[in-house]
């Protein structure tokens, strides 16, 4: 359950809208179902009161939307940012992707978001109503009584491994700020690293072979903000629309991960939107883990203007041939 209520946020948004601080509000609104909350732009008090939603399903990271919305909107935009979203927010500022002056950022604490697949695994299909209170109450057409689920049991993977409850950017904070968390987010990567190359190859073949190249991972990614992606640009030499074979499946994901390496804040949106449940965040986390180990801790988006590891160097860096000796070094 979220500590901040939806009413608190609406009240804040209405106040800022009415006193002229902002001219529109980037927030969440209910989609077709109670669990598919979508990002939306609100311009009036009425819209906010009728449609604004804040609950355990407000998963979308708004940072990337700011690029197009700030360009479009007259005046300032109010945006609500969960702690993890603020890292993307800063990273985009580092890359000059939107005008900070046009944004009024309100940080809101987050207790983690629910994963609908995990809910369905508990109470089955046919969900007709979800109410988020102390517990998440799920009603389906197949059951008479709603199933009560503890939000902690159905947390999304990225929220279980939440890296920070601390907001790194905001104009105003609602509720209390948290701390950076020493999460186990690299455990899964380490597990894979411990496998044999054959096992890893088999693992990734199984995962990546499901890719349908819908580009959802790329299009939702706050680090993927190219005017034109190399995979859409015939001149790049790697352009393709669908993975013709395992090479192209690997190619797309290697290049994409490489392009966001050092810039990825580990927001986890890529894995969230993947219709095939490919654990894409593991590729990004591998890069983050490596760079932390090779070049010192670095969290993209922790501060505006920081220099990412791949656009930096020291004369003492380890050699590419040494990256595999890490295990031995510690010994």
């Amino acid at each position, binding site marked *: 359950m979220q500590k901040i209520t939806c009413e608190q946020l609406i009240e804040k948004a209405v106040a800022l809208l009415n006193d002229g601080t902002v001219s529109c509000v980037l927030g969440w609104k209910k989609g077709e179902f109670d669990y598919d909350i979508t990002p939306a732009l609100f311009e009036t008090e009425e819209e906010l009161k009728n449609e604004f939603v804040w609950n355990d399903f407000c998963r979308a990271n708004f940072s990337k939307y700011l690029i197009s919305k700030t360009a479009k909107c007259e005046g300032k935009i109010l945006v609500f940012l969960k702690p993890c979203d603020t890292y993307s927010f800063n990273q985009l500022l580092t890359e000059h992707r939107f005008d900070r002056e046009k944004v009024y950022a309100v940080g809101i604490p987050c207790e983690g978001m629910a994963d609908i697949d995990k809910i369905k695994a508990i109470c089955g299909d046919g969900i007709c109503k979800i109410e988020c209170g102390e517990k998440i109450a799920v009603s389906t057409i197949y059951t008479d009584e709603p199933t009560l689920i503890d939000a902690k049991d159905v947390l999304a993977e990225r929220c279980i491994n939440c890296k920070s409850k601390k907001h790194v950017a905001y104009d105003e904070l609602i509720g209390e700020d948290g701390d950076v968390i020493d999460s186990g987010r690299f455990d899964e990567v380490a597990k894979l690293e411990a496998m044999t190359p054959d096992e890893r190859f088999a693992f990734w073949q199984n995962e990546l072979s499901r890719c349908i190249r819908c580009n959802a991972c790329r299009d939702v990614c706050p680090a993927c903000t190219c005017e034109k992606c190399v995979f859409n640009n015939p001149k790049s030499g*790697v352009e393709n629309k669908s993975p013709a074979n395992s090479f192209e499946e690997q190619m797309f994901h*290697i290049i994409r991960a490489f392009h966001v390496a050092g810039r990825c804040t580990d927001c986890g949106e890529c894995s969230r939107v993947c219709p095939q449940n490919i654990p894409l965040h593991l590729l990004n986390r591998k890069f983050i883990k490596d760079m932390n180990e090779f070049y010192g801790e670095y969290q993209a988006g922790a501060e505006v203007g920081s220099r990412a590891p791949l656009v930096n*160097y020291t004369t003492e860096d380890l050699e*590419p041939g040494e*990256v595999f000796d890490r295990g031995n070094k510690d010994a």
Partner: protein
Amino acid sequence: MQMKEYKPLIVAFCCNWCSYAGADLAGNNRLNYPADVKIIRVPCSCRVNPMFILRAFQKGADGVIICGCHPGDCHYTSGNYYTRRRMAALFSMLDFLGIERERTRVEWVSAAEGAKFAATMNDFAEKVAALGENKRLEDLRCKK
């Protein structure tokens, strides 16, 4: 397709100032290395885009090696330092995906190191040959 004796195809990206000159020196000194090593000249090792490496594997290369000036000697002062980080990250990622480590390498070869160039190529070709054909990053369409 007729069975041929397997010979690894190796693409070597060499920076213009050190390693390409090192390769020339290997030639001047008549130091042999396999003809399967084909050199592409780039201004600096930092010009090598990971896309080029994947492209080489796609089109049939069995190994890719990048040669640049020794750290500290880059003609452009810092190019090879970026290469070092980029390739460390990329190679580690390829390994993470289960691609054989021995297929990719970075080696620093100065203009005076003709012998090192030849020895490196011999060694690399041998290691790649031991792995056999590149299967994990292959594009079957290119092998018809």
